[in-house]
Protein backbone atom coordinates (compact mmCIF):
# COMPACT_ATOMS: atom_id res chain seq x y z
CA UNK A 1 0.00 0.00 0.00
CA UNK A 2 1.04 3.60 -0.48
CA UNK A 3 2.99 5.38 2.25
CA UNK A 4 1.88 8.89 1.47
CA UNK A 5 -0.86 10.15 -0.82
CA UNK A 6 -1.06 13.68 -2.17
CA UNK A 7 -4.64 14.89 -2.53
CA UNK A 8 -4.81 17.05 -5.65
CA UNK A 9 -8.18 18.60 -4.93
CA UNK A 10 -10.08 20.79 -2.50
CA UNK A 11 -13.40 20.99 -0.63
CA UNK A 12 -15.47 18.06 0.50
CA UNK A 13 -13.82 15.56 -1.84
CA UNK A 14 -10.35 16.38 -0.53
CA UNK A 15 -11.67 15.67 2.97
CA UNK A 16 -13.33 12.47 1.70
CA UNK A 17 -10.01 11.22 0.32
CA UNK A 18 -8.15 12.27 3.46
CA UNK A 19 -10.56 10.24 5.60
CA UNK A 20 -10.07 7.13 3.48
CA UNK A 21 -6.28 7.50 3.64
CA UNK A 22 -6.32 7.97 7.38
CA UNK A 23 -8.48 4.89 7.81
CA UNK A 24 -5.94 2.90 5.80
CA UNK A 25 -3.02 4.31 7.80
CA UNK A 26 -1.69 6.30 4.82
CA UNK A 27 -0.09 9.70 5.37
CA UNK A 28 -1.66 12.63 3.56
CA UNK A 29 -0.40 15.72 1.79
CA UNK A 30 -2.92 18.47 1.13
CA UNK A 31 -2.07 20.85 -1.68
CA UNK A 32 -3.99 24.09 -1.78
CA UNK A 33 -4.21 27.53 -3.30
CA UNK A 34 -3.65 30.59 -1.14
CA UNK A 35 -7.46 30.90 -0.91
CA UNK A 36 -7.75 27.49 0.75
CA UNK A 37 -5.04 27.76 3.43
CA UNK A 38 -7.64 27.38 6.20
CA UNK A 39 -9.65 24.59 4.58
CA UNK A 40 -10.62 21.67 6.79
CA UNK A 41 -8.64 19.06 4.91
CA UNK A 42 -5.55 21.29 4.97
CA UNK A 43 -5.84 21.55 8.75
CA UNK A 44 -6.32 17.82 9.14
CA UNK A 45 -3.64 16.66 6.69
CA UNK A 46 -0.29 15.39 7.92
CA UNK A 47 1.44 17.86 5.58
CA UNK A 48 0.27 20.66 3.36
CA UNK A 49 1.80 22.58 0.48
CA UNK A 50 0.57 25.83 -0.99
CA UNK A 51 0.77 25.40 -4.77
CA UNK A 52 -0.44 28.68 -6.19
CA UNK A 53 -2.81 31.64 -6.19
CA UNK A 54 -6.62 31.30 -6.11
CA UNK A 55 -7.32 30.76 -9.84
CA UNK A 56 -7.54 27.00 -10.40
CA UNK A 57 -5.52 27.28 -13.59
CA UNK A 58 -2.55 28.39 -11.51
CA UNK A 59 -3.05 26.02 -8.58
CA UNK A 60 -5.34 22.98 -8.76
CA UNK A 61 -4.76 22.66 -12.51
CA UNK A 62 -1.07 23.52 -12.28
CA UNK A 63 0.59 20.20 -13.10
CA UNK A 64 4.22 21.28 -12.51
CA UNK A 65 3.33 22.67 -9.08
CA UNK A 66 1.54 19.49 -8.07
CA UNK A 67 4.36 17.26 -9.29
CA UNK A 68 6.85 19.47 -7.45
CA UNK A 69 4.73 19.14 -4.31
CA UNK A 70 4.98 15.35 -4.68
CA UNK A 71 8.74 15.68 -5.01
CA UNK A 72 9.29 17.85 -1.94
CA UNK A 73 6.98 15.76 0.26
CA UNK A 74 7.93 12.36 -1.08
CA UNK A 75 4.33 11.39 -1.87
CA UNK A 76 4.15 8.13 -3.76
CA UNK A 77 0.63 8.52 -5.11
CA UNK A 78 -1.82 11.25 -6.11
CA UNK A 79 -5.58 11.07 -5.67
CA UNK A 80 -7.17 13.56 -8.04
CA UNK A 81 -10.73 13.55 -6.61
CA UNK A 82 -13.24 14.68 -9.24
CA UNK A 83 -13.03 17.67 -11.57
CA UNK A 84 -9.70 19.52 -11.90
CA UNK A 85 -7.06 17.02 -13.10
CA UNK A 86 -9.05 13.86 -12.42
CA UNK A 87 -9.69 13.17 -16.11
CA UNK A 88 -6.55 14.70 -17.51
CA UNK A 89 -4.68 11.99 -19.41
CA UNK A 90 -1.55 14.14 -19.64
CA UNK A 91 -1.43 14.50 -15.86
CA UNK A 92 -1.74 10.73 -15.42
CA UNK A 93 1.03 10.29 -18.02
CA UNK A 94 3.38 12.79 -16.35
CA UNK A 95 2.88 11.15 -12.94
CA UNK A 96 3.70 7.79 -14.47
CA UNK A 97 6.89 9.23 -15.93
CA UNK A 98 7.80 10.50 -12.47
CA UNK A 99 7.03 7.08 -10.97
CA UNK A 100 4.20 8.48 -8.89
CA UNK A 101 1.02 6.39 -8.84
CA UNK A 102 -2.15 7.99 -10.14
CA UNK A 103 -5.24 6.84 -8.23
CA UNK A 104 -7.36 6.27 -11.29
CA UNK A 105 -7.39 4.40 -14.55
CA UNK A 106 -4.62 4.40 -17.15
CA UNK A 107 -3.88 7.55 -19.13
CA UNK A 108 -5.02 5.68 -22.23
CA UNK A 109 -8.46 4.89 -20.77
CA UNK A 110 -8.86 8.48 -19.63
CA UNK A 111 -7.97 9.69 -23.10
CA UNK A 112 -10.37 7.34 -24.88
CA UNK A 113 -13.31 8.19 -22.65
CA UNK A 114 -12.47 11.90 -22.68
CA UNK A 115 -13.15 12.10 -26.40
CA UNK A 116 -16.91 11.83 -26.86
CA UNK A 117 -16.72 10.29 -30.29
CA UNK A 118 -14.05 7.75 -29.44
CA UNK A 119 -15.82 6.97 -26.18
CA UNK A 120 -19.02 6.20 -28.03
CA UNK A 121 -17.23 4.02 -30.56
CA UNK A 122 -15.49 2.14 -27.77
CA UNK A 123 -18.74 1.68 -25.87
CA UNK A 124 -20.45 0.30 -28.96
CA UNK A 125 -17.53 -2.05 -29.57
CA UNK A 126 -17.81 -3.29 -25.94
CA UNK A 127 -21.49 -4.03 -26.34
CA UNK A 128 -22.77 -1.05 -24.38
CA UNK A 129 -26.00 0.34 -25.91
CA UNK A 130 -25.50 3.78 -27.46
CA UNK A 131 -27.94 6.34 -28.68
CA UNK A 132 -28.46 6.12 -32.44
CA UNK A 133 -26.45 8.83 -34.16
CA UNK A 134 -23.58 9.77 -36.41
CA UNK A 135 -20.61 7.46 -36.12
CA UNK A 136 -18.24 10.40 -36.05
CA UNK A 137 -18.14 14.13 -36.49
CA UNK A 138 -20.58 15.85 -38.80
CA UNK A 139 -19.48 19.01 -40.55
CA UNK A 140 -21.52 19.79 -43.64
CA UNK A 141 -25.20 20.65 -43.80
CA UNK A 142 -25.92 17.94 -46.34
CA UNK A 143 -24.27 15.30 -44.19
CA UNK A 144 -26.16 16.55 -41.13
CA UNK A 145 -29.48 16.22 -42.94
CA UNK A 146 -28.67 12.70 -44.11
CA UNK A 147 -27.56 11.50 -40.67
CA UNK A 148 -30.52 13.12 -38.93
CA UNK A 149 -32.92 11.35 -41.28
CA UNK A 150 -31.29 7.99 -40.49
CA UNK A 151 -31.27 8.60 -36.74
CA UNK A 152 -34.81 9.91 -36.74
CA UNK A 153 -36.05 13.29 -35.45
CA UNK A 154 -35.89 14.93 -32.98
CA UNK A 155 -32.10 15.02 -33.02
CA UNK A 156 -29.47 16.63 -30.83
CA UNK A 157 -26.31 18.25 -32.16
CA UNK A 158 -23.48 18.15 -29.64
CA UNK A 159 -19.92 19.46 -29.50
CA UNK A 160 -17.42 16.60 -29.67
CA UNK A 161 -15.23 18.27 -27.07
CA UNK A 162 -18.18 19.54 -25.06
CA UNK A 163 -19.71 19.23 -21.66
CA UNK A 164 -21.94 21.19 -19.33
CA UNK A 165 -24.55 21.82 -21.98
CA UNK A 166 -22.50 24.18 -24.10
CA UNK A 167 -22.52 23.50 -27.84
CA UNK A 168 -25.79 21.51 -27.67
CA UNK A 169 -28.72 22.17 -29.98
CA UNK A 170 -31.97 20.33 -30.68
CA UNK A 171 -33.56 20.08 -34.11
CA UNK A 172 -37.15 18.90 -33.91
CA UNK A 173 -37.46 18.45 -37.67
CA UNK A 174 -35.60 19.01 -40.92
CA UNK A 175 -36.52 22.69 -41.02
CA UNK A 176 -34.42 23.30 -37.95
CA UNK A 177 -31.35 21.26 -38.78
CA UNK A 178 -29.34 23.91 -40.65
CA UNK A 179 -29.64 26.56 -37.96
CA UNK A 180 -29.03 24.05 -35.19
CA UNK A 181 -25.86 22.80 -36.86
CA UNK A 182 -24.42 26.26 -37.42
CA UNK A 183 -25.24 27.43 -33.91
CA UNK A 184 -23.77 24.33 -32.32
CA UNK A 185 -20.60 24.64 -34.36
CA UNK A 186 -20.19 28.31 -33.46
CA UNK A 187 -20.76 27.63 -29.75
CA UNK A 188 -18.43 24.65 -29.82
CA UNK A 189 -15.71 26.72 -31.42
CA UNK A 190 -16.16 29.51 -28.87
CA UNK A 191 -16.34 27.26 -25.83
CA UNK A 192 -13.81 24.57 -26.66
CA UNK A 193 -11.77 25.94 -29.55
CA UNK A 194 -13.00 23.07 -31.70
CA UNK A 195 -16.10 23.13 -33.90
CA UNK A 196 -16.41 19.35 -34.30
CA UNK A 197 -19.99 18.25 -33.58
CA UNK A 198 -21.96 15.06 -33.85
CA UNK A 199 -25.62 14.15 -34.14
CA UNK A 200 -27.74 11.75 -32.14
CA UNK A 201 -31.35 10.91 -31.37
CA UNK A 202 -32.95 13.41 -29.04
CA UNK A 203 -34.83 11.78 -26.19
CA UNK A 204 -37.88 13.68 -25.01
CA UNK A 205 -38.27 12.61 -21.39
CA UNK A 206 -35.30 10.45 -20.45
CA UNK A 207 -33.95 9.76 -16.99
CA UNK A 208 -30.25 10.05 -16.23
CA UNK A 209 -29.22 6.66 -14.88
CA UNK A 210 -25.57 5.80 -14.39
CA UNK A 211 -23.87 2.52 -13.57
CA UNK A 212 -21.04 2.50 -11.06
CA UNK A 213 -18.35 0.11 -12.22
CA UNK A 214 -15.13 -0.94 -10.59
CA UNK A 215 -12.20 -2.82 -12.14
CA UNK A 216 -8.75 -3.82 -11.01
CA UNK A 217 -6.97 -3.45 -14.34
CA UNK A 218 -6.28 -7.15 -14.23
CA UNK A 219 -9.43 -8.28 -15.97
CA UNK A 220 -11.76 -8.31 -12.97
CA UNK A 221 -14.66 -5.88 -12.87
CA UNK A 222 -18.01 -5.54 -11.12
CA UNK A 223 -21.01 -3.23 -11.26
CA UNK A 224 -22.23 -1.65 -8.03
CA UNK A 225 -25.76 -0.82 -9.05
CA UNK A 226 -27.04 2.35 -10.60
CA UNK A 227 -27.66 5.89 -9.49
CA UNK A 228 -30.58 7.96 -10.71
CA UNK A 229 -29.37 11.52 -11.22
CA UNK A 230 -32.25 12.82 -13.28
CA UNK A 231 -32.87 15.81 -11.05
CA UNK A 232 -30.61 18.35 -12.70
CA UNK A 233 -30.49 22.08 -13.17
CA UNK A 234 -28.47 23.37 -16.12
CA UNK A 235 -26.96 19.89 -16.52
CA UNK A 236 -25.74 20.00 -12.92
CA UNK A 237 -26.92 17.16 -10.73
CA UNK A 238 -28.80 18.32 -7.66
CA UNK A 239 -30.20 15.14 -6.10
CA UNK A 240 -29.03 11.58 -6.68
CA UNK A 241 -30.46 8.32 -5.51
CA UNK A 242 -29.65 4.64 -5.52
CA UNK A 243 -31.22 2.47 -6.58
CA UNK A 244 -33.31 4.14 -9.29
CA UNK A 245 -37.05 4.16 -8.67
CA UNK A 246 -37.46 3.42 -12.39
CA UNK A 247 -35.61 0.11 -12.73
CA UNK A 248 -36.56 -3.40 -11.75
CA UNK A 249 -34.10 -6.08 -10.70
CA UNK A 250 -33.95 -7.73 -14.12
CA UNK A 251 -33.17 -4.48 -15.93
CA UNK A 252 -30.56 -3.66 -13.31
CA UNK A 253 -28.87 -7.00 -13.70
CA UNK A 254 -28.86 -6.82 -17.48
CA UNK A 255 -27.36 -3.35 -17.89
CA UNK A 256 -25.05 -3.92 -14.92
CA UNK A 257 -23.61 -7.13 -16.30
CA UNK A 258 -23.16 -5.56 -19.71
CA UNK A 259 -21.14 -2.73 -18.17
CA UNK A 260 -19.09 -4.98 -15.88
CA UNK A 261 -18.24 -7.27 -18.75
CA UNK A 262 -17.17 -4.32 -20.88
CA UNK A 263 -14.90 -3.04 -18.12
CA UNK A 264 -13.37 -6.48 -17.61
CA UNK A 265 -12.66 -6.69 -21.34
CA UNK A 266 -11.17 -3.20 -21.35
CA UNK A 267 -9.05 -4.14 -18.27
CA UNK A 268 -10.33 -0.94 -16.71
CA UNK A 269 -8.76 -0.02 -13.37
CA UNK A 270 -10.48 1.71 -10.45
CA UNK A 271 -13.81 3.48 -10.15
CA UNK A 272 -15.74 4.49 -13.22
CA UNK A 273 -19.24 5.55 -14.09
CA UNK A 274 -21.05 4.78 -17.29
CA UNK A 275 -23.76 7.35 -17.79
CA UNK A 276 -26.95 6.57 -19.69
CA UNK A 277 -30.11 8.22 -20.74
CA UNK A 278 -32.96 5.85 -20.00
CA UNK A 279 -36.31 6.02 -21.72
CA UNK A 280 -39.06 3.44 -22.19
CA UNK A 281 -36.93 0.57 -20.93
CA UNK A 282 -33.95 1.38 -23.18
CA UNK A 283 -30.49 2.59 -22.14
CA UNK A 284 -28.45 4.97 -24.30
CA UNK A 285 -24.78 5.56 -23.46
CA UNK A 286 -23.91 9.22 -22.87
CA UNK A 287 -20.35 9.11 -21.61
CA UNK A 288 -18.05 7.40 -19.18
CA UNK A 289 -16.48 9.25 -16.28
CA UNK A 290 -13.11 7.73 -15.48
CA UNK A 291 -13.01 8.90 -11.87
CA UNK A 292 -14.90 9.03 -8.59
CA UNK A 293 -18.27 10.83 -8.86
CA UNK A 294 -19.61 13.48 -6.50
CA UNK A 295 -22.54 11.15 -5.82
CA UNK A 296 -20.51 8.03 -5.00
CA UNK A 297 -21.74 7.98 -1.35
CA UNK A 298 -25.22 6.75 -2.30
CA UNK A 299 -23.57 3.69 -3.80
CA UNK A 300 -21.49 3.27 -0.66
CA UNK A 301 -24.65 3.45 1.43
CA UNK A 302 -26.43 0.63 -0.38
CA UNK A 303 -23.38 -1.61 -0.91
CA UNK A 304 -21.48 -1.05 2.35
CA UNK A 305 -18.27 -0.52 0.36
CA UNK A 306 -15.80 2.33 0.79
CA UNK A 307 -15.12 3.28 -2.82
CA UNK A 308 -12.16 5.52 -2.06
CA UNK A 309 -10.44 2.82 -0.03
CA UNK A 310 -11.05 0.44 -2.92
CA UNK A 311 -9.59 2.97 -5.37
CA UNK A 312 -6.45 3.21 -3.26
CA UNK A 313 -6.12 -0.57 -2.96
CA UNK A 314 -6.49 -1.16 -6.67
CA UNK A 315 -4.15 1.70 -7.56
CA UNK A 316 -1.55 0.12 -5.29
CA UNK A 317 -1.76 -3.07 -7.34
CA UNK A 318 -4.24 -5.18 -5.42
CA UNK A 319 -6.84 -7.30 -7.16
CA UNK A 320 -10.52 -6.67 -6.51
CA UNK A 321 -11.29 -7.90 -3.02
CA UNK A 322 -14.81 -9.01 -3.97
CA UNK A 323 -16.72 -10.57 -6.82
CA UNK A 324 -20.11 -9.70 -8.23
CA UNK A 325 -21.66 -12.35 -6.00
CA UNK A 326 -20.41 -10.52 -2.90
CA UNK A 327 -22.29 -7.37 -3.84
CA UNK A 328 -25.81 -6.99 -2.47
CA UNK A 329 -27.92 -3.86 -2.35
CA UNK A 330 -29.43 -2.84 0.97
CA UNK A 331 -32.19 -0.28 1.24
CA UNK A 332 -32.25 3.08 -0.46
CA UNK A 333 -30.03 6.16 -0.35
CA UNK A 334 -30.45 9.77 -1.48
CA UNK A 335 -27.82 12.50 -1.71
CA UNK A 336 -28.63 16.21 -1.70
CA UNK A 337 -25.92 18.56 -2.90
CA UNK A 338 -25.77 21.46 -0.50
CA UNK A 339 -24.62 24.43 -2.55
CA UNK A 340 -23.81 27.92 -1.31
CA UNK A 341 -26.44 29.44 -3.56
CA UNK A 342 -29.68 31.29 -3.24
CA UNK A 343 -32.32 28.52 -3.33
CA UNK A 344 -34.57 30.61 -5.61
CA UNK A 345 -32.18 32.41 -7.94
CA UNK A 346 -29.18 30.07 -7.63
CA UNK A 347 -26.87 33.06 -7.37
CA UNK A 348 -23.69 31.87 -5.63
CA UNK A 349 -23.39 32.95 -2.03
CA UNK A 350 -19.78 32.80 -0.88
CA UNK A 351 -18.95 34.23 2.55
CA UNK A 352 -18.44 33.37 6.17
CA UNK A 353 -20.31 30.55 7.84
CA UNK A 354 -21.26 32.19 11.12
CA UNK A 355 -23.37 29.33 12.42
CA UNK A 356 -23.35 25.66 11.59
CA UNK A 357 -25.21 22.66 12.88
CA UNK A 358 -25.21 19.51 10.83
CA UNK A 359 -27.80 16.77 11.22
CA UNK A 360 -26.90 13.47 12.86
CA UNK A 361 -28.48 10.25 14.01
CA UNK A 362 -29.25 6.94 12.36
CA UNK A 363 -28.84 6.71 8.60
CA UNK A 364 -27.46 10.23 8.15
CA UNK A 365 -24.07 11.01 6.63
CA UNK A 366 -22.66 14.47 6.03
CA UNK A 367 -19.62 14.98 3.81
CA UNK A 368 -18.56 18.59 4.16
CA UNK A 369 -15.43 20.58 4.78
CA UNK A 370 -17.10 23.67 6.20
CA UNK A 371 -16.98 24.66 9.85
CA UNK A 372 -18.17 27.53 12.01
CA UNK A 373 -16.12 30.59 11.07
CA UNK A 374 -14.99 29.18 7.71
CA UNK A 375 -15.12 31.54 4.76
CA UNK A 376 -16.29 29.99 1.53
CA UNK A 377 -14.00 31.42 -1.12
CA UNK A 378 -15.60 32.89 -4.25
CA UNK A 379 -13.16 31.25 -6.67
CA UNK A 380 -14.51 27.72 -6.93
CA UNK A 381 -17.78 25.88 -7.39
CA UNK A 382 -20.54 26.33 -4.86
CA UNK A 383 -20.75 22.76 -3.50
CA UNK A 384 -20.14 23.04 0.24
CA UNK A 385 -21.45 19.73 1.45
CA UNK A 386 -23.42 16.62 0.74
CA UNK A 387 -26.17 15.17 2.84
CA UNK A 388 -26.55 11.44 2.28
CA UNK A 389 -29.43 9.61 3.89
CA UNK A 390 -30.01 5.86 3.97
CA UNK A 391 -33.18 3.97 4.82
CA UNK A 392 -34.48 0.45 4.57
CA UNK A 393 -36.72 1.50 1.70
CA UNK A 394 -37.30 4.63 -0.36
CA UNK A 395 -40.13 5.84 1.85
CA UNK A 396 -38.07 5.59 5.05
CA UNK A 397 -35.26 7.33 3.20
CA UNK A 398 -37.52 10.23 2.19
CA UNK A 399 -38.88 10.61 5.74
CA UNK A 400 -35.37 10.55 7.15
CA UNK A 401 -34.20 13.06 4.56
CA UNK A 402 -36.93 15.49 5.55
CA UNK A 403 -36.05 15.00 9.21
CA UNK A 404 -32.35 15.61 8.56
CA UNK A 405 -32.87 18.67 6.35
CA UNK A 406 -35.03 20.12 9.11
CA UNK A 407 -32.11 19.87 11.54
CA UNK A 408 -29.56 21.42 9.18
CA UNK A 409 -28.50 24.95 10.14
CA UNK A 410 -26.05 26.95 8.04
CA UNK A 411 -26.00 30.64 8.89
CA UNK A 412 -24.28 33.52 7.14
CA UNK A 413 -24.75 32.29 3.59
CA UNK A 414 -27.59 31.10 1.40
CA UNK A 415 -27.82 27.39 0.70
CA UNK A 416 -29.98 25.10 -1.39
CA UNK A 417 -31.42 23.37 1.70
CA UNK A 418 -34.83 25.09 1.35
CA UNK A 419 -35.05 23.82 -2.24
CA UNK A 420 -34.77 20.22 -1.04
CA UNK A 421 -37.47 20.77 1.58
CA UNK A 422 -39.72 22.04 -1.20
CA UNK A 423 -38.87 19.09 -3.41
CA UNK A 424 -39.88 16.70 -0.63
CA UNK A 425 -43.41 18.12 -0.81
CA UNK A 426 -43.85 17.31 -4.50
CA UNK A 427 -45.90 14.19 -5.32
CA UNK A 428 -43.64 13.46 -8.34
CA UNK A 429 -40.58 13.35 -6.10
CA UNK A 430 -42.34 11.22 -3.50
CA UNK A 431 -43.43 8.84 -6.25
CA UNK A 432 -40.02 8.87 -7.97
CA UNK A 433 -41.73 10.06 -11.17
CA UNK A 434 -39.31 12.49 -12.73
CA UNK A 435 -37.11 12.84 -15.81
CA UNK A 436 -34.13 15.05 -16.58
CA UNK A 437 -36.40 17.99 -17.43
CA UNK A 438 -38.55 17.77 -14.32
CA UNK A 439 -36.51 20.08 -12.10
CA UNK A 440 -36.10 22.84 -14.68
CA UNK A 441 -39.85 22.79 -15.26
CA UNK A 442 -40.58 22.81 -11.56
CA UNK A 443 -38.29 25.77 -11.00
CA UNK A 444 -39.85 27.67 -13.92
CA UNK A 445 -43.38 27.00 -12.69
CA UNK A 446 -42.55 27.94 -9.13
CA UNK A 447 -40.30 30.90 -9.83
CA UNK A 448 -42.91 33.33 -8.58
CA UNK A 449 -43.69 31.35 -5.42
Amino acid at each position, binding site marked *: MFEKVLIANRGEIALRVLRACRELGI*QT*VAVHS*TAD*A*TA*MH*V*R*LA*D*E*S*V*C*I*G*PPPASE*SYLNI*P*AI*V*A*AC*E*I*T*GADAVHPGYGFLSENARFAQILEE*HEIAFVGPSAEHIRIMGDKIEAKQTARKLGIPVVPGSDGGVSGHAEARKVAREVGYPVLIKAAAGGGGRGMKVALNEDEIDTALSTAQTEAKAAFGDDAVYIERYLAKPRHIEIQVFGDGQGNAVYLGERDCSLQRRHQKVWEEALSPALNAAQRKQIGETCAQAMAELKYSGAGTIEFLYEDGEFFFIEMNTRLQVEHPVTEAITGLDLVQEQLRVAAGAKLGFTQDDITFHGHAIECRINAENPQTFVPSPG*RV*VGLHQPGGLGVRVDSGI*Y*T*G*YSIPPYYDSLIGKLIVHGRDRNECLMRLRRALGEYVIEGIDTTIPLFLRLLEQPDIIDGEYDIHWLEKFLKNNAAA
Partner: protein
Amino acid sequence: MGKDSKTFDHEQIRILAEILADTGLTEIEVEQDGLKIRVAREVTVSYAPAPQHIVASPAPAAAAPAPEAPAAAAPAGNAAGTVKSPMVGTAYFSPSPGSAPFVQLGSQVKAGQTIMIIEAMKTMNQIPAPHAGTVKQILVSNGEPVEFDQPLMIIE
Protein backbone atom coordinates in the same frame (compact mmCIF):
# COMPACT_ATOMS: atom_id res chain seq x y z
CA MET B 1 -2.48 61.08 24.65
CA GLY B 2 -1.22 63.77 26.99
CA LYS B 3 1.05 61.43 28.82
CA ASP B 4 4.33 60.26 27.51
CA SER B 5 3.58 57.20 25.43
CA LYS B 6 6.41 55.41 27.15
CA THR B 7 4.27 55.24 30.28
CA PHE B 8 2.00 53.02 28.28
CA ASP B 9 1.51 50.02 30.47
CA HIS B 10 1.90 47.02 28.23
CA GLU B 11 1.45 44.81 31.22
CA GLN B 12 -2.10 46.09 31.51
CA ILE B 13 -2.83 44.99 27.97
CA ARG B 14 -1.45 41.55 28.68
CA ILE B 15 -3.61 41.28 31.78
CA LEU B 16 -6.69 42.32 29.82
CA ALA B 17 -5.84 39.76 27.15
CA GLU B 18 -5.62 37.12 29.83
CA ILE B 19 -8.99 38.08 31.23
CA LEU B 20 -10.35 37.93 27.71
CA ALA B 21 -9.13 34.38 27.32
CA ASP B 22 -10.25 33.27 30.78
CA THR B 23 -13.72 34.65 30.52
CA GLY B 24 -14.39 33.87 26.90
CA LEU B 25 -15.19 37.50 26.19
CA THR B 26 -14.54 38.86 22.74
CA GLU B 27 -13.96 42.47 23.66
CA ILE B 28 -12.93 44.59 26.65
CA GLU B 29 -12.66 48.34 26.63
CA VAL B 30 -11.42 50.32 29.58
CA GLU B 31 -11.13 54.07 29.78
CA GLN B 32 -9.75 55.99 32.70
CA ASP B 33 -7.97 59.28 33.15
CA GLY B 34 -7.68 59.86 29.45
CA LEU B 35 -6.25 56.43 28.75
CA LYS B 36 -8.39 54.07 26.72
CA ILE B 37 -7.52 50.44 26.10
CA ARG B 38 -9.57 48.10 23.97
CA VAL B 39 -8.72 44.45 23.47
CA ALA B 40 -10.69 42.14 21.21
CA ARG B 41 -10.55 38.69 19.85
CA GLU B 42 -12.34 36.98 16.99
CA VAL B 43 -14.01 34.00 18.48
CA THR B 44 -15.19 32.19 15.43
CA VAL B 45 -11.69 31.47 14.28
CA SER B 46 -11.08 29.36 17.32
CA TYR B 47 -14.05 27.17 16.44
CA ALA B 48 -12.17 25.83 13.48
CA PRO B 49 -11.33 22.21 13.93
CA ALA B 50 -7.74 22.48 14.92
CA PRO B 51 -6.13 19.11 14.30
CA GLN B 52 -5.51 18.80 17.99
CA HIS B 53 -5.73 15.05 18.14
CA ILE B 54 -3.91 14.33 14.94
CA VAL B 55 -0.28 13.63 15.40
CA ALA B 56 1.51 15.45 12.64
CA SER B 57 4.09 13.43 10.79
CA PRO B 58 7.72 14.20 11.62
CA ALA B 59 7.85 16.41 8.57
CA PRO B 60 10.43 14.55 6.53
CA ALA B 61 10.40 17.21 3.87
CA ALA B 62 9.87 20.12 6.20
CA ALA B 63 6.58 20.80 4.52
CA ALA B 64 4.47 20.02 7.55
CA PRO B 65 5.20 23.17 9.51
CA ALA B 66 4.53 25.22 6.45
CA PRO B 67 0.88 26.02 7.21
CA GLU B 68 2.01 27.97 10.22
CA ALA B 69 4.95 29.56 8.49
CA PRO B 70 3.01 32.27 6.69
CA ALA B 71 1.56 33.41 10.00
CA ALA B 72 4.84 33.23 11.88
CA ALA B 73 6.71 34.98 9.13
CA ALA B 74 3.95 37.46 8.59
CA PRO B 75 5.96 40.57 9.45
CA ALA B 76 8.68 39.49 7.03
CA GLY B 77 6.14 38.44 4.45
CA ASN B 78 4.49 41.81 4.58
CA ALA B 79 7.66 43.82 4.54
CA ALA B 80 8.12 45.90 1.43
CA GLY B 81 11.23 44.17 0.19
CA THR B 82 10.11 40.58 0.58
CA VAL B 83 10.77 38.20 -2.31
CA LYS B 84 8.22 35.39 -2.34
CA SER B 85 8.49 32.05 -4.06
CA PRO B 86 6.67 31.98 -7.39
CA MET B 87 6.44 28.19 -7.31
CA VAL B 88 6.65 24.99 -5.31
CA GLY B 89 10.04 23.33 -5.29
CA THR B 90 13.39 23.04 -3.59
CA ALA B 91 15.42 26.20 -3.02
CA TYR B 92 19.16 26.25 -3.83
CA PHE B 93 21.53 29.10 -3.13
CA SER B 94 24.20 28.25 -5.71
CA PRO B 95 24.16 27.06 -9.35
CA SER B 96 25.76 23.71 -8.41
CA PRO B 97 26.78 21.96 -5.22
CA GLY B 98 30.00 23.44 -3.89
CA SER B 99 29.97 26.55 -6.05
CA ALA B 100 29.63 30.04 -4.66
CA PRO B 101 26.16 31.25 -3.69
CA PHE B 102 24.36 33.74 -5.91
CA VAL B 103 24.00 36.17 -3.05
CA GLN B 104 24.79 36.38 0.65
CA LEU B 105 23.53 38.43 3.56
CA GLY B 106 24.56 41.99 2.82
CA SER B 107 25.04 41.47 -0.92
CA GLN B 108 24.10 44.33 -3.21
CA VAL B 109 21.79 43.07 -5.95
CA LYS B 110 20.46 44.57 -9.15
CA ALA B 111 16.92 44.06 -10.35
CA GLY B 112 16.78 40.90 -12.46
CA GLN B 113 19.91 39.38 -11.00
CA THR B 114 19.52 35.68 -10.09
CA ILE B 115 19.33 35.32 -6.34
CA MET B 116 18.30 31.67 -6.00
CA ILE B 117 17.32 28.57 -7.93
CA ILE B 118 14.14 26.61 -7.32
CA GLU B 119 14.14 23.08 -8.59
CA ALA B 120 10.79 21.67 -9.61
CA MET B 121 10.20 18.62 -11.79
CA LYS B 122 13.97 18.28 -12.38
CA THR B 123 14.05 21.80 -13.82
CA MET B 124 16.22 24.52 -12.33
CA ASN B 125 14.26 27.77 -12.26
CA GLN B 126 16.29 30.92 -11.72
CA ILE B 127 14.65 33.36 -9.35
CA PRO B 128 15.46 36.98 -10.27
CA ALA B 129 15.60 39.83 -7.79
CA PRO B 130 12.40 41.83 -8.32
CA HIS B 131 14.18 45.06 -7.37
CA ALA B 132 17.64 46.38 -6.55
CA GLY B 133 18.88 46.59 -2.97
CA THR B 134 20.74 44.90 -0.16
CA VAL B 135 20.00 41.37 1.02
CA LYS B 136 18.75 42.03 4.53
CA GLN B 137 17.45 38.59 5.42
CA ILE B 138 17.46 35.09 3.94
CA LEU B 139 14.34 33.28 5.12
CA VAL B 140 14.93 29.75 3.85
CA SER B 141 17.84 27.30 3.98
CA ASN B 142 19.79 25.84 1.10
CA GLY B 143 18.04 22.66 -0.07
CA GLU B 144 14.81 23.50 1.72
CA PRO B 145 11.45 22.72 0.10
CA VAL B 146 9.41 25.87 -0.43
CA GLU B 147 5.74 26.46 -1.10
CA PHE B 148 4.12 28.94 -3.45
CA ASP B 149 4.09 32.43 -1.92
CA GLN B 150 6.56 31.50 0.81
CA PRO B 151 8.86 34.44 1.69
CA LEU B 152 12.41 33.64 0.53
CA MET B 153 14.44 36.76 1.13
CA ILE B 154 14.19 40.42 2.08
CA ILE B 155 15.97 42.86 -0.23
CA GLU B 156 15.82 46.50 0.77
